[in-house]
């Protein structure tokens, strides 16, 4: 008992002597929490780092009556690397910058085309950054996008970045791209990286598709139809809404929304040294509007529409597949990974030389759609 007590007292004294640790704690008020981080190209191989931080409430206008509103400030600095830029900003702002609440990393298109491996590596090594912070490629400069986000009228900018990401759930026009999976795919040997692609039109930020990377370089972007095709091929489509020309009425349109009722199947073979990729897609269609003359009760009509929708999707998906293989040579659908899994060792797979042959791929797309009633009123 005495020994225990002695030990506890001794430990206590030793701990008191650890007062050297006292001044090391940094409170929340000593940080600036970054909401959005932007990377732009600058002269002489420098980068321009921009950060969006909530401004000091004392300095903001006193008309801000809503308790939820806040304004943001953007600071930029030019440096050779991200860490150097953050260091300079720490000094300039007199408070330490903390990336724990960063919702988005915005990279300008021009910088992404030059290669971003070292910046992504640097961000990935940062212990503060969250794994699911979004990666956005902006057609204009990153500073421009952050400025538009700040002036968008949205109370919390972090929410706006979330909305950009969430559009994939109901429009299918882009993808979710977290910094973790983005960095993983950039280093990955069998899959190329993709990111959200945005455009700024008249002070409004729009998701405009998917940015396609080959290794660490941005090679192009996919438009909205191609993004939907990408989501269908990779089984990530939640829901999307499309319009096609009506087959019954001239100048008429059919609106429908699509989900997938079955997982997309992909079969890969090598024929004469070129990959032959066969994809079976199973969309479930719900017709929202097809004009007042369309008779839903006739199975002949439904069959005709099914056939038309199948052809429509086949065309979109084929255009997308040939674009990524011939124009970009970028395997963003992980076909290499899928084909590699049929081999027993990487040594056997390396004899195929997939990297060179992917550009010569040819595709076959089969779409088997199902049309469901959308419970619309008929003409009568």
């Amino acid at each position, binding site marked *: 008992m005495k*020994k*225990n007590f002695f*030990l506890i007292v001794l*430990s206590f004294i*030793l701990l008191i002597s*650890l007062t*050297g*640790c006292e*001044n*090391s*704690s*940094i409170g929340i008020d000593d940080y600036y929490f970054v909401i959005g981080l932007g990377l732009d190209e600058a002269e002489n191989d420098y980068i321009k780092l921009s950060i969006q931080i909530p401004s000091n409430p004392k300095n903001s206008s006193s008309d801000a009556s809503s308790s939820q509103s806040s304004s943001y400030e953007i600071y930029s600095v030019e440096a050779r690397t991200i860490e150097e830029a953050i260091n300079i900003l720490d000094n300039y702002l007199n408070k330490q910058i903390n990336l*724990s609440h960063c919702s988005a990393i915005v990279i300008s298109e021009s910088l992404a085309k030059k290669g971003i491996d070292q910046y992504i590596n640097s961000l990935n*090594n940062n*212990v503060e950054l*969250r*794994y*699911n912070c979004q990666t956005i490629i902006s057609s204009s400069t990153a500073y421009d996008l952050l400025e538009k986000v700040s002036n968008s009228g949205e109370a919390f900018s972090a929410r706006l970045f*979330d909305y950009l990401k969430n559009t994939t759930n109901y429009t299918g026009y882009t993808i979710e791209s977290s910094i*973790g*999976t983005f960095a*993983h795919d950039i*280093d*990955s*040997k*069998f*899959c190329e990286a993709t990111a959200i692609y945005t455009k700024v039109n008249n002070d409004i930020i729009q998701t405009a598709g998917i940015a396609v990377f080959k290794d660490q370089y941005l090679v192009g972007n996919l438009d909205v139809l191609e993004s939907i095709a990408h989501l269908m091929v990779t089984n990530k489509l939640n829901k999307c809404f499309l319009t096609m020309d009506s087959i019954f009425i001239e100048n008429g349109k059919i609106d429908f929304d699509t989900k997938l009722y079955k997982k997309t199947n992909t079969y890969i073979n090598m024929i004469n040294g070129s990959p032959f990729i066969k994809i079976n897609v199973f969309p479930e269609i719900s017709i929202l509007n097809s004009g007042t003359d369309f008779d839903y009760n006739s199975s002949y009509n439904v069959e005709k529409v099914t056939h038309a929708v199948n052809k429509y999707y086949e065309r979109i998906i084929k255009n997308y597949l040939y674009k990524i293989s011939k124009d970009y040579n970028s395997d963003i659908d*992980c076909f290499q*990974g*899928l084909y*590699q*899994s049929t*081999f*027993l*060792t*990487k*040594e*056997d*797979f390396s004899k195929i030389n997939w990297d060179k042959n992917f550009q010569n791929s040819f595709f076959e797309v089969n779409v088997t759609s199902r049309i469901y009633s959308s419970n619309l009123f008929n003409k009568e």
Partner: protein
Amino acid sequence: MDNHYQIGKVEAIFIIVILSTSKLIANFSFYFVNTVGSGVIVNFIYIGIIDFAFMILLIYLQQKFQNSDIIDISEQVGGKLLKILCGLVCITVLILSAFITLKDFSSIIQKVYFSNFSIIYILMFFILAVLVANFVGFKSLARINLLIVPFVIMAILATFFSIIAKINNKSLTPVFGDSYYKTFITGLSNVFMISNLSYVLFLKPLLKNESDYKKICIISYIISWICILLVLIVTELLFNSTPSKEPSNSVFLLVRSVNFGSFIERIDSLFILLCVICIFSYLSFVVFLINRIFKKLFNITDEKMISYIACTFLFSLCLFPISLSALYYLENYVYRYMIILFSFAFEFSILIIGNFKKRIRKEKT
């Protein structure tokens, strides 16, 4: 206060599990994955079978030595000289394991959570915990372990199931890795990963019921094999066996990527809490084993005082300035081959010679 406490079956199983799985907290899963690439599963099953076979052989060889650990057996085989040699080898292996784990882990938490602290304060907490644990006694240590190990196993399972669904599982193919030679021949050195063989030989004198020894060895082996396999799978999924990546704490990085929507994010701090307790327990057991070895070598009555020496030595070793590449070399080459030589060559040779001597003695009588 009782170091003559005899442990039951469950306590022994959990002690061996914590001694084996604590190396996951250091970077060993990263080195494993870098050696074999995507052939992780096949390689681990292959070395698991080899290890299991050696374990069964070890149990059979040790059957004739009642209530004896490796130090007692070496005394019976080669007298006092071999006993001291064996003791020193065991102490070296234990100190090296403890040093690597402590150095790795303390540098990680200093880098991430305590960037303004000096590493001396962080190490001091670990050393103090080990000292207190050894003074309070083996009984309490075995009992606190019963609480820790289920949480460690649950954490490993939770990490596995939360990551497996997210990452592209094509990382695990081709199944046989880069080549058959790399998976089966070069990958044979990965047998260090399940180092149960090093620790079970100290266990027999501590058991309440010696007949449980076989069950304890097999059950603890299976549990640690499953835990290590799960962590290796998610390490390969996340790191894609990229050799250019810095060997940082792979388990910490795994847990950083776990999130369920935006509600559950960044649970690495909770995980680190569990890791810290796991390391406390592991180091305390290692120092306890060192105390026992010293007691047997030099007939010391009160082995608790050896804790001071062992802890001070470990502390000063951890403060030794060592570069990252030297630490990498130590972990990936020195430790790996030392465990292999110790577990498969040294221990088995002593046991085989001991069995041989016993048989000759029996034939003479």
